[in-house]
């Protein structure tokens, strides 16, 4: 019995800092891009995240990806 991880969907997330709150802490917003190929290389995803971030009004805080997977008992 083996559990296999099967990719479902992935997203590219670019987090930007949109400003400061009334109490002075940083406010972040996430820019999410769906339909990321689950098998895409992290280096490619990062490069595109940086490129997209460069078009943003706000400074990029971080670039990440969310991989949704299913665990199937085979």
């Amino acid at each position, binding site marked *: 019995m083996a559990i296999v991880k099967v990719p479902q969907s992935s997203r*590219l997330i670019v987090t*930007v800092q*949109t400003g400061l709150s009334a109490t002075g802490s940083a406010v972040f*917003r996430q*820019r999410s*891009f769906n*339909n*990321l*190929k689950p098998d*895409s*290389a992290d280096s*490619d*995803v990062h*490069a*595109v995240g940086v*490129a*997209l971030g*460069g*078009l*943003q*009004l*706000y400074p990029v805080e971080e670039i990440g990806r969310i991989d949704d997977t299913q665990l199937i008992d085979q």
Partner: protein
Amino acid sequence: MTKTLEMVFRNASGKKVTLSLADPKEDLTKAQVDVVMQEIISRNIFTSKTGELTQSVEARIRTRDAIALV
């Protein structure tokens, strides 16, 4: 007033696919956006229901105004 950058691509089956980015820079040029769209195509990391993104079509800024009634 909110601004959204819309990058329109064509996919492998000829359909248009739009990637949207909220709050683009104020003074974006077509050249700047074209570079990013080419990067997206060459890195080939996005797909769509009907195929991979294969070419860029256009880029546009959509502006939305909401005025509260008082």
